[in-house]
């Protein structure tokens, strides 16, 4: 499944990186401590986090995440979206908390 389809099916708002929403999502990861995410996330992951600092873009690019999904209605910093735009990293916003969104993503066959 590509990022755009996931966004459409789960009604996630796309706030940056629209050029790259045809990326394939291969797996998922949930984490808010970037040291942990850097160590464990796999390439092609849809990454769910409530961390909104601009460092999330660098971590996602470094680890070749498919997209970042900011959950729980948290709002990303302006700098984060600017950086994501520059790096072509899709940033999606979800109202659901990470757990609820994980369940929905798993129901779509990504786990």
């Amino acid at each position: 499944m590509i990022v755009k389809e996931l966004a459409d099916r789960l009604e996630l708002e796309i706030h940056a990186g629209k050029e790259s929403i045809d990326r394939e999502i291969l797996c998922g990861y949930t984490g808010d401590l970037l040291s942990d995410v850097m160590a464990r996330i796999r390439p092609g992951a849809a990454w769910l986090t409530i961390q909104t600092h601009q460092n999330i873009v660098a971590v996602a690019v470094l680890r070749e995440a498919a997209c970042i999904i900011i959950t729980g209605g948290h709002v990303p910093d302006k700098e984060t979206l600017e950086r994501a735009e520059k790096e072509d990293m899709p940033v999606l916003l979800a109202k659901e908390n990470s757990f609820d969104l994980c369940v929905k993503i798993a129901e779509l066959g990504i786990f």
Partner: protein
Amino acid sequence: MTPVKIIKAAESENLNIIAVCDHNSAKNAGAVAKAARQSGITVIAGMEICTREEVHLVALFKCLCDALEMGDIIQRGLSEKNHPDIFGYQVISDENDMVTGQEDRLLISASLLSLEQAVQKIHSLGGIAVAAHVDRPVFSIVSQLGFIPDHIGLDGIEMSRHAFGTTGVHNLLDNTDPPCILSSDAHFSRDIAAGYTVFDMRDTSFESMRNALSERKFRCFVKRPGY
């Protein structure tokens, strides 16, 4: 830890300057400064701010009033109330170790300020901003954000004694950018001076310390290594 106990420990450890850095509050710094009057120890009013990213940031101020103003700004964003039965009492003490009040907000919670906003606010109040215990696995800039972001204007980073297995001077901290100091991060009296930084300064004023920090005129010591 109480003001009198802190000063006694600092005296027996021969410290010249200490900084009082409660979580998200500066309301005990004045009492410690008063308790230090006979000792000759300089007490810096500070705070360990928990930013929105849950990064711990040490803020040091020239005047108590600036630290208290920072505390007000931080506490306006703390929505949770303390529950003493779960989190313990958050007491405010006078210089004789008498409890004069309690902090109402839950001080371990995160403020609304981002790391960048907190550094900017500290600087606008003339303070020094140091990323706390960067070697620790929790609440450090490295654990929360993976790496130290560029251009946020930190004046320093702080290592804790836990990073070291041996006592003595540690030169490996000499070439970091920003400068890296070592301090005890003492949460109990017994930890005071477990790690410390010796600054090369003319006097024990805040400005002399700021200069020694930016000019890297200091050395870091571990007295009691971590576990």
